[in-house]
C-alpha cells in the first residue's frame, strides 16, 4: 500500500493505493469518474486515454502509485457545467460522435495533439489519433471536428 497525492481535473486527491492498482480502476471504481471508458484492458485501443501533465496516456497501463504530484485530466475536466470545451462542441456539431464509447479518449488525445500542434494538417491529425480506435465513424468527421476546434482555440489564444 502506498499513499499518493495527485490532482484530478485541478482538484487535489490523497489516496491509499495498492502497488498494482491501475489508474483506470482508481478513476472508475474508486472515484466514480465513469467518463473514462475501457475496451481492451491491454493498452491497444486508446479508449481509456486520459492526460497526465497534458500528455495523452493509457490509464489501463498506468499504476496510480506512480502519480505523485501529477495532474490528471479526465473528460470530466473539460466542460464548465454546460459550457463545453471547443473540442467537445466541435465533436457534437460535426457529427463526430456515434456510439460515443471512443469519444472521451478521442477528445483527450485531440487535446494533447492540439497542445503540441495548434494548426495540424489532416495527416498530422490522423497520426496524432493513431492510438485511438473508432469502429463507428470511419474517422473523417473526427478529423473535421479537430480542425474546427483548432481554428476556434487559436482565435481564443490570439483574442
Amino acid at each position, binding site marked *: 500500500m502506498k499513499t499518493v497525492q495527485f490532482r484530478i481535473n485541478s482538484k487535489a486527491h490523497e489516496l491509499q493505493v495498492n502497488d498494482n492498482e491501475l489508474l483506470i480502476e482508481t478513476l472508475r471504481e474508486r472515484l466514480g469518474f465513469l467518463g473514462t471508458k475501457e475496451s481492451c484492458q491491454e493498452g491497444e485501443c486508446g479508449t481509456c486515454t486520459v492526460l497526465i501533465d497534458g500528455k495523452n496516456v493509457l490509464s489501463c497501463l498506468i499504476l496510480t502509485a506512480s502519480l505523485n504530484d501529477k495532474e490528471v485530466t479526465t473528460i470530466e475536466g473539460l466542460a464548465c457545467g454546460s459550457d463545453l470545451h471547443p473540442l*467537445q462542441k466541435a465533436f457534437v456539431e460535426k457529427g463526430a460522435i*456515434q456510439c460515443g464509447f471512443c469519444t472521451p479518449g478521442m477528445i483527450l488525445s485531440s487535446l494533447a495533439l492540439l497542445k503540441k500542434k495548434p494548426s495540424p494538417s489532416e495527416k498530422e491529425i490522423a*497520426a496524432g489519433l493513431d492510438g485511438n480506435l473508432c469502429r463507428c465513424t470511419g*474517422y473523417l468527421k473526427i478529423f473535421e471536428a479537430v480542425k474546427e476546434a483548432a481554428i476556434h482555440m487559436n482565435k481564443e489564444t490570439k483574442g
Partner: protein
Amino acid sequence: MKNKTISPVGKSVPRIDAVEKAAGQATYVYDFKPQGTLVGKMLRSPHAHARILKIDTSQALVLAGVRAVVTALDAPKVKFGSNEYFFPYTVDQYPLEFEKVRYIGDEIAAVAAIDEETAQRALSLIKVEYEVLPAVFDPVEAMKPHSPQIHSSMNNIGVMLPVHFGNPDKALKESDYVREDVFYLPSAAHCALEPHVSVAQYETSTDKITLWTSTQAPFKVREALAKTLEMDSCDIRVLKLHVGGGFGGKLEMLPMDFAACLLSKKAQGAPVKIVCDRKEEFSYTRRKHPMIYKLKSGVKKDGTIMAITGEVIADGGAYCSYGPTVIAAAIMRIFMVYKIEHIRMMGFRVYTNNPVSGAIRGFGGVQSGFAVESHMDLLARGIGLDPLEFRLKNATDPDMVTVNKLIISSNGLKDCIRKAGQISDWSKKNGIKREVPKDIVRGIGMGVAADVMGSKMYKSHESAGTIIKVEEDGSVYCFTGAADTGQGSDTVMAQIAAQELGVAYERVRIRAADTETTPFDTGSFASRVTFISGNATKNAAGDAKRQILEVVAQEFKLGSENLDIKDEAVVNISTGSEVLSFDKAVELCYSFNYGRLIIGRGSYNPKTTPIDFRTGQGNISGSYGFEAQIAEVEVNKKTGQVKLVKMVDVHDIGYPINPASVHGQIEGSIIMGMGYTLFEDLKFTDGRVQNPSFSKYRIPRSVDAVPIESVFIETNDPQGPFGAKGMGEASLLPTAAAIANAIHDAVGIRIKDLPITREKILKAIKDKENNTKNEG
C-alpha cells in the same frame, strides 16, 4: 429551449445524445453497477467437441465469497435459437450445456462472487469430466458422410436454402460467354468498443427479472429469456442504456444473459454483472460466417446477364444463431440489383466445431457483395465491355417486380452508377494503367449494392410502435421501441416526431428500447429503423397533432381539416395565418373546458410478403435502397502494397432525415469494409481464435482513413417517412469488390480471397508474369 430548430427533417442537427457523450456523462451498461452487484463469470468448454459426463460444482459453492453457482440443472432445459419463427429446426442451443459442448468456449456453468478474483477462483474449482470427441473445423469436411456429427442434422448441414427461377442450364447454353469463379471469404469480428455486458436483477419475492444489457434488440432478448426460463414475457424487463456499438453482434440473447438472471435468482436477488473481456469478445461471442462462394454465369455479347448459378458453403460454427438470415442475404440480394430471369443458387450453412457465426453488418451481403461484384466485373471484361456499362445494362429499374417477386418502388441505382462514374472520372481512368511514379500503378473499380429496410425473417410481423405524449408545458416525450446503438436512431425519431408534430427538434425527448415502457420493435438490424420505426413515429406524431387540432378547431369553431401545426404554431391552411402558438394550443387542451391529455400512438408494418424458402420467392423488404461505389487504388508492383486513394459512394437514400448521420453511416461502413478487404482476418486453428486482440486483429485506425466522397440521390420513397429509406449496412457491401476490381484494372491480377494482402498481390503479379513468359 436554448435553440429552436424548426422543420428539422433534412437538417444535420446535432445528435440528441452527443453532448452527454462528449462530456463523458453518457451511461452505458458497462458503467452500470447497482449497490451490491456481484461479479459473474462463465465457465466455458476448453474442448471443441466433447460429451459432458459430469459437472461437479461442490467445491466452488463452498468457496468464501461465492454467492451462487449455476448449471443447466438450475433451469428448465429449453433450447433457443434466433431465427425460430421461420426455421424452427434451427433452435439448437441450450443456454448452459449439460450433454455436449460443441466449440471452445461453449457455456457450461456460471458463478457469481463478491469480486473478480473470487469469481475466477470459483471457476477453476468447478470440475467437469469430458469425453473428448473428434472435431471438425472445415465446412467442406464437415459435410462429408463420416464426419463427426455435431447436432442431429444430416451431414452437419444446419440450413439449406435454394434459389431457383427460370431455366438456368438452357440459358447458360445460349450464352456467348460463360465463366466460373470461386471466392473465399474469411471470418471477421464486430469489434464494437463496448464489449458484451449484462446486469441482471431477479426479484425473488415476485419472480420478476430486470436485465440491463448492451443490446440492439431488447424485445428479442426478452423473448429468448422467457422461453428458456419458462417465464411470462411480462415478468421480464429488458432494457438498454447507451450502447457502445453493435454491428449485429448484440442482436440476440447470449448464454451470459441467461446466466446472469439465473445467478441473481440463486443469489437471493443480488444484481449480477457479467462482462466480456476483449479476448472473450473475439473468441466466444459471434463472428462473421466464412464462406466459399462459387459462381458460374453466362452473358450475351451485348452484356445481358443470361443465367447465374452457384453454391455457397458457409461455416456456421457450433450453433445456428442468425444463420438462415445470413444465408438468405448471401444468395438473394442479387435480385435487388440485377434483372435476372434464370438463376439457381444453393446456400449451405454447415455446422463445425468453430465458434458461432452470426449476424454481422450486412448479414451475408458483404460476402456475396465481394463474390458477385467481382464475378460481374470478370464477366464484363470477358466480353470486352466497360464494367460500368455492364452494370447499367443489367441494373434493376424503379417500379418493377423481380422474378422472385421483390417489389421495388423507388430505385435510383442507374442514376447512382452514372453519377459515380461522372464524379470519379471513370471513363478517363478505367482501363488506363497509369504508372506514375514508376512501379506504382493506379486503377479504378466499381461495385454496386442494394439496401434492405428490414427483412421478413424474424417474426410473422415486423412492426414497430411509438407513443408520443405532449405534456401541459408543451414538452414532447417520444417512446419508441427503436434501439440506438450509435447509429443515431434516437435523433432521427426526434426529428421525425418534431417535423410531423410541427414543433422544434429541441422539444422532443426520447425514451427508447425498454420492453416494459416502450412499444414493440424487433431491433436495430437490416437497416430497418429509419424506415419502419420512423414511420411508426411519424404516425404517432400525426395522431398527437390531430388530437391537438381537434381541440383548437372546437375552440375557434374552425374545421380541423383546415388547420395544421407548423414551425411551432397552429396555422390556418387556407389563409396561412397563425391561429395560436403551439404552447398556447397545448395549454388549451389541458384547460378547464377540455382537460384533454395528448397521447399519440402509431405503428407500422412494412409491405412485405412471406418468403417461400424453397425457392427464394417473396418481397423481403418494404423498400430498397441502392448505391454505386467506385474505388481508386494505387498498387505498388514491387511491394504489393495497396493504397486506397479515394472512394466515391453515390447512394439512393430516398431522402436524408439527418444528412450528417447518413454520411457518418456511409463513411463508417466504407472504412469497415476496407478493413475487411485489406487486413481483417479472424484466424482459427483447431477451433481456437488465433488473434483475439486489437494488436493481432487489425481494424482500421485513423491513419488508414481514406478520402470519401459521399453523394446522395434523392428518390423520395413513396413509403418512407418523408421519403427516407434506411441506412446502416449497404455501404460496406460493394467495397471489397470495388477495391479488387480496381486492383485488376491497375495490374491485371485478380484476387479472389480476402483479405487482399501484399503477399497475395506479389504472388499474383509474379504468376501473371510467368504465364506471359510461358505463353510468349
